[in-house]
C-alpha cells in the first residue's frame, strides 16, 4: 500500500500536513516559527497581537495540572508595529504562517490587520473567545453571533486573506456562532480556544496559583469538549474547521478529523511530547491510515457523522 497523503488545502493554502501550531505557543519570533516548521508542523500561528503592546498578566501565567494546562498569559505581545517588524520576509519560514489578531472593538482588529498587511501572512485568525483577559474575547462580549458578525464583517473589508474565526468551547450553541462567522465572510473556523476559566489553589499558600487567579483550560481536559464542538460546527457550516484542543497523538488527530476537522491544532501536546510532536503525530496518522485503508485527510473528515 502507498503512503497516505497528509497534504491538505486549507482555504487555498497548501499544507504539507494538517498539524497547525495554535496561537500562544512558541509564536513569539520568526526563529521559533522556523523551529516549529523543522519540527514538522503543517502551518503555524503567531502569538495573538493587539494594536498596542501588552505585558500581560504577572507570573505564574501557565501552570500544568493532571489533565492539561491552566493559563492566563493575558495576551502579552509587542503590538502590531513590532510584530510586523519581527515577522517580515515570512517566505524564510517554510510553512504558511497565520496571524492571530485581537482587539476590543471591530476597528481595533482592522487597524492591526492593516499594519500586518505587508508581512506575507497566509491567513488572519480572529480569536473572539479568550476566557480570561478583560477587554478581549468573552470578557468583551465577543462570544455572541452579533459581535462575531460585526468584527468579521469589518475585517472582511480590510483584507483579502482567508479569515479564520476562533471560537470558545464555553458557548453551548457554538454552531450558531460558527454560522454567524461564515455568513459574515469567514473562510474557516478554529475550534476551540481554552475552556473555563478554571482555578487551581495551592492549599499551603491558600492562594490561587495563577496571578490572575483564573485561567483557560487546555489539553486532555479539553479534548472531548473540543471534539463535540467540532462535531457541532461541522453540522452548522460548510467552511473548513481547524480542530484544536488536547490533541497529542495521531489517534487524537484522526478523532478530531472524523468529528469534522480539516486541519488540527496542537498546543498543549508540545508540553507533553516535546516540540517534535508535529512529526510524531504525522507518522502516527500515516501508520493508522495505512492500516485502515485511508489515502488522504479529506476521506476522513466528518465521517463520524455518517
Amino acid at each position, binding site marked *: 500500500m502507498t503512503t497516505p497523503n497528509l497534504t491538505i488545502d486549507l482555504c487555498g493554502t497548501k499544507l504539507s500536513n494538517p498539524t497547525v501550531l495554535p496561537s500562544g505557543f512558541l509564536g513569539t519570533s520568526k526563529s521559533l516559527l522556523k523551529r516549529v516548521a523543522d519540527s514538522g508542523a503543517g502551518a503555524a500561528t503567531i502569538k495573538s497581537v493587539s494594536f498596542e*503592546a501588552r505585558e500581560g498578566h504577572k*507570573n505564574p501565567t501557565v501552570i500544568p495540572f493532571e489533565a492539561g494546562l491552566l493559563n492566563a*498569559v493575558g495576551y502579552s*505581545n509587542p503590538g502590531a508595529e513590532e510584530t510586523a517588524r519581527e515577522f517580515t520576509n515570512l517566505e524564510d519560514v517554510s510553512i504558511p504562517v497565520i496571524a492571530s489578531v485581537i482587539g476590543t472593538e471591530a476597528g481595533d482588529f482592522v487597524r492591526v490587520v492593516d499594519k500586518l498587511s505587508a508581512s506575507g501572512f497566509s491567513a488572519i485568525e480572529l480569536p473572539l473567545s479568550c476566557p480570561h483577559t478583560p477587554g478581549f474575547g468573552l470578557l468583551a462580549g465577543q462570544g455572541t453571533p452579533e459581535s462575531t458578525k460585526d468584527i468579521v464583517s469589518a475585517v472582511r473589508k480590510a483584507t483579502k486573506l482567508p479569515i479564520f474565526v476562533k471560537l470558545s468551547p464555553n458557548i453551548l450553541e457554538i454552531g450558531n456562532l460558527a454560522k454567524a462567522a461564515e455568513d459574515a465572510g469567514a473562510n474557516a473556523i478554529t475550534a476551540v480556544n481554552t475552556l473555563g476559566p478554571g482555578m487551581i489553589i495551592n492549599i499551603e499558600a491558600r*492562594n490561587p*496559583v495563577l496571578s490572575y487567579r483564573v485561567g483557560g483550560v487546555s489539553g486532555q481536559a479539553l479534548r472531548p469538549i473540543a471534539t463535540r464542538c467540532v462535531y457541532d460546527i461541522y453540522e452548522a457550516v460548510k467552511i473548513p474547521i481547524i480542530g484544536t484542543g488536547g490533541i497529542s497523538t495521531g489517534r487524537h488527530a484522526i478523532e478530531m478529523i472524523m468529528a469534522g476537522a480539516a486541519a488540527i491544532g496542537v498546543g498543549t501536546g508540545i508540553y507533553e511530547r516535546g516540540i517534535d510532536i508535529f512529526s510524531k503525530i504525522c507518522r502516527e496518522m500515516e501508520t493508522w491510515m495505512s492500516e485502515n485503508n485511508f489515502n488522504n485527510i479529506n476521506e476522513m473528515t466528518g465521517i463520524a457523522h455518517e
Partner: protein
Amino acid sequence: MSNGFDQPVMMKIDKIINESDDTKSFMFRHNLDYKPGQFIMVWLPGIDEKPFAVSYYGDDFFGITVLVRGKSTKYMHSMGVGEQLGIRGPFGHGFSITDNIKDGSGNACVIGGGCGMASLTVLIESLQDNNTTILTGATTKTTLLFKNRYKDITIFTDDGSEGSKGYPTDALEDLHKENSYSIIYTCGPEIMMSKVYEFCKKHNIQCEASLERYMKCGIGICGQCVCDGQMVCKDGPVFDSQALGKMSDFGNYSLLKSGQKVSINDYGKWKEA
C-alpha cells in the same frame, strides 16, 4: 518532567545567608532532584514568579542566591526564616561534565560574573576533585559572591577594590597557555559570556554558557524566553559552543515581557512595573 514539581510546592525558608550588600541566600530543607545548571521557578503568592539557579545543594537541603533587582527580589529580601516560597522545577538542561574532566585527564575553567556565580556553585562542587580553575568577577568588592567558598578562586573587580582590576576574561589567554583547558563553563552578563565564547572558539575549547532570558511558563511552550529558535527554559539555560554558534541573538538581543525584542543592554536596564 522527571521527579520535579509541575506545580509550585510551598517550602519554608530554613536559613538566610547575607552574601553581599545586595545579595542573600535562602536555604530550604528538601531533597531536590537537581543537576548543575538547571533552574527552578520561585513563586511569591500574590506577587510574581521568577527563575533562579540552585546555588547550594545537598542530600537534604538546597538554597538559592538572590540579587536585588526589582519588585520580587526586593520582596524576597524582606522575608524571614519560616516564611514560605513556592518552588516548581527543576527545569531545563544543565552543564555537561565530559569524560576527560571526570577522569582528570582534562582541565576545566569556570568563569562567573556577578550573580551568575549562583548558577555555577553546584557545578564547581561537582568538579572539585578535578583540576578546575575558578574565576569570578564583580563590579566592586562588596558585590563579590562566594569569594570565601572556594580555596582556589581568582577574583576580579571592575574597580580593583579586591583581586585584580579588570574582567575575568582578561586572564584567560595566559591561563589557557598554562592549563590547556578542554572546557570552559560560564554564567554572567551576556557580554562577558559572549567574550568567553569567542575566546573558546578561537582556541578550539568547548564552551558552555548559561543564558538568562525573561521567563514565563518555564516549560517550553510560551516562547517568551526564545533565543534564535531555542527556548532557554527548556533547550537551555545551558548551551554549548555548537548551539551558541548558531545564535545571532546571543550577546545581542532579548525579549521584554511584552515580547518586544530589544538589545541585551536595554533588556538589562528594563525593570518590571
